[in-house]
């Protein structure tokens, strides 16, 4: 008897190997990242640069792999090699990632602070470079509001998702459009009200999918100093760091599975609790 006709993309599901994929009820923080330190994982921080010599970074930054993108005379210009941090923001994000996944290697892709022209173009070029270079985790504590760039960012984020790079983005600090944080192919993060860096939540109302520590956080900054600061920018690298731990322990997980593990290990899923929301305007709009 011949096989029944089926669409060209159909496969017999029984024969597909999913490796040692656990059942949902087996997904716990201990299974996900217990004993992991981020070893073997490469993280790209696309931001304002990183002060690689900052004492909080313990030499985790791969200086020679650093790349900077700027727009000059309408053209995106790439510069390879070490660079500084224009504002402190990239160093802050790298410090958070390193504090959670200390053995992971961090690379700076600088797209902010090289002038005010063509910021979205430089940002897009930096993200494309990160995906082409196959980074395991990409932290984007920035976004663009320009609709003209929406499709271009959508394409590169889809390419990352299917190409096995896990992109973590900060949602805008207030409820307004920001690309690529609105896309399903990335993990978009806002602040919760917790002090515990490993305690995060799932947002039941996407596109922001996860909530992590981002309020009054002590972070590395310019000139070897530390400051206290607040914003979704600092929540995203917490999830990026946790994703690095998970990828370190389970390198075979793809972005879809990684998101599922994050969902299953989120505090409000494990505890069946609701999530307190920061910001009185946000609360009013959610009512």
């Amino acid at each position, binding site marked *: 008897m011949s096989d029944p006709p089926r669409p060209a993309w159909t496969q017999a599901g029984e024969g597909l190997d999913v490796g040692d994929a656990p059942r949902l009820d087996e997904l716990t923080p201990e299974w996900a990242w217990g004993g992991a330190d981020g070893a073997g994982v490469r993280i790209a921080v696309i931001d*304002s640069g990183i002060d690689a010599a900052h004492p909080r970074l313990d030499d985790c930054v791969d200086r020679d792999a650093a790349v900077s993108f700027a727009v000059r005379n309408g053209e995106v210009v790439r510069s390879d090699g070490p660079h500084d941090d*224009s*504002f*402190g*923001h990239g160093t802050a994000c790298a410090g958070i990632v390193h504090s959670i996944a200390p053995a992971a290697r961090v690379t700076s892709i600088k797209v*902010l*602070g090289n*002038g*005010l022209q063509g*910021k979205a173009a430089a940002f897009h070029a930096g993200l494309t470079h990160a995906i082409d270079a196959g980074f395991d985790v990409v932290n984007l*504590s*920035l*976004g*663009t*509001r*320009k*609709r003209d760039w929406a499709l271009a960012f959508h394409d590169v984020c889809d390419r990352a998702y299917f190409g096995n790079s896990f992109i973590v983005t*900060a949602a*805008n*600090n*207030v409820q307004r459009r*920001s690309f690529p944080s609105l896309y399903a192919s990335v993990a978009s993060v806002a*602040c919760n009200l917790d002090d515990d860096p490993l305690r995060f939540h799932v947002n039941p109302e996407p596109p922001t999918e996860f909530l992590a520590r981002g*309020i*009054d956080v002590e972070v590395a*900054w*310019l*000139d070897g*100093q*530390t*400051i*206290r*600061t*607040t*914003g*979704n*920018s600092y929540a995203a690298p917490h999830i990026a760091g946790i994703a690095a731990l998970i990828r370190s322990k389970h390198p075979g997980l793809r972005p879809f599975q990684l998101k599922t593990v994050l969902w299953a290990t989120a505090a409000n899923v494990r505890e069946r609790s609701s999530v307190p929301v*920061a*910001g*009185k*305007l*946000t609360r009013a709009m959610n009512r």
Partner: protein
Amino acid sequence: MTSVARPVLDAIVAAAVDVTAASVGWLLMIDDEDLVVVAAAGGSDPQARLGERVAVSGVAGLVISSEQAAAIDTPPSDTSNVGAGGLDGNPAGVLAAPCGDDDVLGVLELARPQGSGPFTVDDIEEATLLARVAGAALAELDDALATVPSPGELAAGLERLAVAAPARYAVVARLLASLFEADR
């Protein structure tokens, strides 16, 4: 600056200072690769800095580059913030929010002195809301500035009129020409 935009922008900055319990606030507009102080409120003499050009650095620079609001407790030795120049000593906290929608036209920056608490998520939300209002006013201002003819264009137009209707415009054209001559 147009006479309409100025009091509107001053009122927005004053409201932002008030609702966030900041001590001083400025509205900075992007002009080429710099920022220009176009409105101010709070402090002992906030108007003194109007028209001042500052580099795109510190928290204001970060906000304009990242298009996201930011609130930081400034380390005492960090003088890169615009707010640092408006207080006695460095500010304890700086909050900045981008003005504009698709395009960021400027930044609303607020500062608190040493000894006061940090800015909160509520402060960020309120400042962002007011910065969006300021963005609409800045867009009007930007349009108004873009449609004002340059002195050269004005002189050329008057010269054309002087040729077409000398009895009416010749004196004005001569005056303008003499002014340009005096400038050279």
